[in-house]
């Protein structure tokens, strides 16, 4: 079975298994605990926060300044507790996940190295590649981030299991992203690129849907693309990976028929986001499509204080340094500015996601 070589306890379908039962039980607990905080406590948190404002004689409208909302929210015991729970759950999850998979870092390194020369599919990277400082962040608190921990690939893969609350244990969401990506009007799909591909969960699904196409996954993090390549080889998919920047891919003009991105743009500064849109426009051929699956963004739509409080908390305390910039940007406007025609894409089951299709004018 795929990825079975990675830990002594093998895998559960396409998901690597923690190296010990105790680690699996512990992270299962964290998953349930986090679900409780998100599903049960979060709505109560919003209500009590707004009630705290009302009690202080402030109408909880979208006009309340964030600092005022924070001042009142932060005095509510339930909201203090909620922040504590979310932060602690996230720390516990990464700490134990890393500990479980890094039980023999040298062996893991050997394995990654062994797979580098194996096909199907290739892994391309330049040892002299410079990772820009903005990308070296411990997003979601992942130790070492996507770029600085050699174990980062497998740690991200299992860590996100908890984030997905059981909805993606077998890459179900990634399969949907691949299935819902827009095909160009002329139906020609020979070259596909998955930008910010992470550990390649979506990349292999694109190959499944378009077995005849040449499929590339690109990411700034070497640890994630190395793991992606190893995993794809194990799963038997002929896809290629490259460590590169989405804003400077190195691919030729008009090389791709389809480009896909999934939950990427909220993790880069707005300036980089603009540069990426320009680069995608350059490497897509006329009529080519860019399918974007992303977290919601609100532009200048007024938001209740509790939602703005949550965005601020997530940015500061769950290391999403760039997400407020994304959330309050005119994302669709920026896509159009890059020269694309912008339309709604097919909506994935996860109603939280927005789906956009940007087409390069023919």
């Amino acid at each position: 079975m795929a990825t079975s070589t990675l830990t002594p306890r093998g895998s559960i379908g396409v998901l690597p298994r923690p190296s010990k039962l105790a680690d699996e039980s512990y992270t299962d607990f964290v998953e349930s605990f986090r679900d409780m905080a998100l599903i049960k406590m979060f709505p109560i948190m919003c209500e009590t926060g707004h009630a705290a404002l009302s009690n202080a004689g402030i109408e909880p409208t979208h006009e309340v300044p964030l600092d005022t909302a924070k001042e009142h929210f932060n005095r509510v015991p339930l909201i203090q507790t909620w922040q504590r729970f979310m932060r602690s759950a996230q720390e516990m999850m990464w700490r134990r996940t890393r500990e479980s998979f890094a039980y023999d870092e040298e062996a893991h390194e050997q394995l990654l190295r062994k797979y580098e020369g194996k096909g199907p599919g290739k892994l391309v990277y330049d040892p002299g590649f410079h990772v820009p400082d903005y990308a070296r962040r411990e997003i979601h608190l992942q130790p070492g981030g996507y770029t600085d921990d050699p174990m980062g690939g497998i740690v991200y893969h299992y860590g996100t299991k908890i984030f997905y609350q059981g909805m993606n244990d077998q890459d179900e969401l990634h399969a949907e992203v691949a299935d819902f990506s827009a095909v160009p009007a002329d139906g020609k799909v020979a070259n596909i690129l998955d930008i910010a591909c992470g550990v390649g969960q979506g990349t292999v699904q694109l190959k499944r849907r378009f077995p005849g196409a040449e499929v590339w996954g690109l990411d700034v993090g070497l640890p994630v693309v190395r793991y992606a390549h190893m995993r794809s080889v194990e799963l038997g998919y002929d896809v290629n990976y490259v460590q590169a920047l989405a804003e400077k891919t190195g691919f030729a003009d008009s090389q791709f028929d389809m480009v896909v991105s999934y939950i990427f743009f909220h993790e880069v500064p707005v300036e980089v986001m603009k540069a990426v849109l320009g680069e995608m426009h350059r490497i897509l051929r006329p009529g080519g499509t860019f399918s974007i699956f992303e977290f919601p963004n609100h532009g200048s739509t007024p938001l209740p204080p509790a939602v703005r409080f949550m965005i601020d908390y997530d940015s500061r305390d769950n290391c999403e340094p760039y997400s407020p910039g994304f959330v309050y940007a005119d994302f669709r406007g920026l896509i159009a500015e890059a020269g694309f025609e912008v339309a709604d894409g097919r909506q994935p089951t996860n109603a939280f996601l927005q789906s956009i299709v940007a087409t390069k004018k023919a």
Partner: protein
Amino acid sequence: MDMVTTPPPPIGEEINGPGRAYFDHVVTDNILDALIELAAEVWTTRDRVSVLETVLAEQGIDAAALVEAPIPSPEQAAERKARREAFVAQIFNSFSRRTQ
């Protein structure tokens, strides 16, 4: 609009740094952290026992029923009491340690 301007901590500092506190007194944060860790440990142990019982049942041993039967000898009872007291002390020591 509501931009966050404070930079995130340098790489390596998020979960290994000093951490975050949300309550007026940091001890509240510490107690809750201990509580969550403890709950995680309790779950982990429970899960292990249940897996163990399943494995034994597959070998024809009904461990779940067997553990209900024995009446400990005085020595065994004393030994279990000592281990229990050590467990209680391990968790609750801090409450009597700081006296001010």
